[in-house]
């Protein structure tokens, strides 16, 4: 293993060890991250840097440590997805309609991170309102992956919607990042960028202060350089919050409890439906993953989730329906940007012009699809039917997760694609989410772990799926994969 050459390239666990030993200060670490961000403009991952705030928080962390304090994230610089409200720091969910918005309050999740000692570096690029799988649909312009195909300089997408989070972590601009996942938006970009991302059980993290996309599906989680770091970050982010009625009143367990990765006595299932139509590379990666889990002592068996095929279209009814309702709040009255009105324009024109100017094409498409499937005459045929399919998807998982405690599946159909590859074909882009949306519909936790490389050099990830509230054993299985996959793949800096 080649040792990282700069502090910003350390994992959270490594940086904590250095700081606890007095060999590194939070200020040095933060300055190194800020320098890395300054040099990485070509990635367009960090869209609202806050260097002054970062250094102030770093100094406070150093002072606290000098006074004998120690906390899990004391002095650890993090990037924050632009979907989180951060008091006094711009947040616009990568949308033109929220240009100029400065939240007057802090999201629960980011508030918990600062309370755990973390340092805020700035806001990260994403697909507008978290709708997308490539971080190309953003008012800030596309985010570019730090990865390139071997022998090729074509820009590659970092995945989405948390593409800025995955790119910033993979490029060592920060030690970890927050992200959100409604249909795969943590796990897919993590897989594309060769880093770790977990979507916890629905209700594990508070949604208070996170701009809503589809409230029954949205969950926050971390993107990190290692399984251990992801467990540490989730421990700080999770917990009941009276401000979110869907956040679970459960104790936060020690997510690092089973990281030794001993899987003896564990039964892990591989859904047969997730093996269909895989590229040879993805199929081979899945086989490697199965061998790794067996090597760690697990019994790996075939299982079946017959509703898999119907899950994706059901998701693309439910998510836009909830989005059309949630995004009704962006009306040019209370916050954000208002269109310039003409003589005699009334309040209807104010809404319609503001939203026409403010929403990008993908958000407009989804809000319109949502309005359509909820409209009179179509509600039963689309929305109600999709909600019934959702129950069938959940029942599939309930049945299978009685026989096995974890599932192994691909995270994505293949490695990251090139910028512009799916222009003009939204359905092809939606198919990227085929292995991830099922978990959101069922509310289950899933973690994406890098386990290999494609022939073109790009990282490939696998996804582990756990029982509801089963993140501790899920992290254990992820650690077993990570230990056998070897050192985290690092992109060759070109930026």
């Amino acid at each position, binding site marked *: 293993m080649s040792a990282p050459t700069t502090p910003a390239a350390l994992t959270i666990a490594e940086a904590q060890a250095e700081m606890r030993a007095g060999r590194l200060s939070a200020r040095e670490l933060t300055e190194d991250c800020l320098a890395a961000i300054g040099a990485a403009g070509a990635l367009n991952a960090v869209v609202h840097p806050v260097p002054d705030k970062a250094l102030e928080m770093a100094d406070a962390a150093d002072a606290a440590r000098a006074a004998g304090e120690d906390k899990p994230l004391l002095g650890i610089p993090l990037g924050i997805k632009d979907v989180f409200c951060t008091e006094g720091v711009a947040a616009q969910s990568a949308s033109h309609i929220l240009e100029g918005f400065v939240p*007057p309050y802090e999201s629960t999740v980011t508030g918990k991170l600062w309370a755990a000692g973390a340092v805020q570096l700035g806001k990260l690029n994403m697909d507008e309102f978290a709708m997308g799988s490539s971080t190309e649909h953003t008012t800030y312009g596309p985010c570019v992956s730090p990865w390139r195909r071997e022998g090729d300089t074509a820009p590659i997408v970092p995945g989405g919607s948390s593409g800025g989070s995955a790119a910033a972590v993979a490029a060592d601009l920060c030690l970890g990042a927050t992200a959100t996942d409604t249909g795969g938006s943590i796990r897919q970009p993590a897989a594309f960028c060769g880093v770790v991302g977990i979507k916890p059980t629905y209700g594990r993290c508070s949604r208070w202060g996170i701009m809503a996309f589809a409230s029954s599906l949205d969950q926050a989680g971390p993107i990190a350089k290692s399984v251990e770091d992801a467990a540490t970050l989730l421990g700080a982010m999770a917990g009941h919050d009276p401000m979110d009625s869907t956040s679970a009143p459960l104790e936060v367990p020690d997510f690092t409890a089973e990281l030794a990765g001993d899987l003896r006595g564990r039964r892990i299932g591989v859904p047969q439906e997730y093996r269909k139509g895989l590229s040879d590379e993805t199929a081979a990666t899945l086989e490697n993953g199965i061998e790794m889990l067996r090597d760690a002592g697990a019994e790996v068996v075939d299982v079946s989730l017959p509703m898999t095929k119907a899950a994706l279209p059901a998701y693309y009814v439910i998510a836009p329906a909830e989005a059309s309702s949630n995004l009704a709040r962006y009306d040019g009255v209370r916050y*954000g940007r208002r269109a310039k009105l003409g003589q005699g324009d009334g309040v209807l024109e*104010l809404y319609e012009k503001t939203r026409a100017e403010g929403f990008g094409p993908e958000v407009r498409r989804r809000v319109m699809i949502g309005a359509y499937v909820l409209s009179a005459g179509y509600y039963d045929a689309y929305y109600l039917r999709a909600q019934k399919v959702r129950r069938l998807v959940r029942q599939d998982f309930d049945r299978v997760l009685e026989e096995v405690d974890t599932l192994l599946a691909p995270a994505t159909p293949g490695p990251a694609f090139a910028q512009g590859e799916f222009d003009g074909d939204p359905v092809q882009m939606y198919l990227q989410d085929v292995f991830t949306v099922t978990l959101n519909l069922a509310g289950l936790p899933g973690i994406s772990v890098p386990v290999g490389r494609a022939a073109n050099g790009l990282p490939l990830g696998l996804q582990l799926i756990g029982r509801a509230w089963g993140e501790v054993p899920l992290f254990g299985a992820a650690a077993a994969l990570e230990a056998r996959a070897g050192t985290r793949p690092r992109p060759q800096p070109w930026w």
Partner: protein
Amino acid sequence: MSIDRATVRKVARLARIAVREDEEEQLAGELSGVLDWIEQLQAVDVEGVEPMASVHPLELPRRADALTAAEGEAGIQDKVLANAPDARQGFYAVPKVVE
């Protein structure tokens, strides 16, 4: 093609998004593409299945109908209005509404 231009105009109005006439044709194509793909849901047997709106049983907690600490904070009105595109005399301002 399941969506025609008239439906695009209707849905645009429901969604409160102004759509220019010269965009209608393309939007009709895009929305039809998505909806035709979603059509495969009709093949699933959902007879007798209860719709599922939430993954956890919904037992919404209640709280006292009183101001929270944040709502009662001094200067909260200014804070709330600070992001408004047009705020006057403690209110959001909009064009005159005549029904």
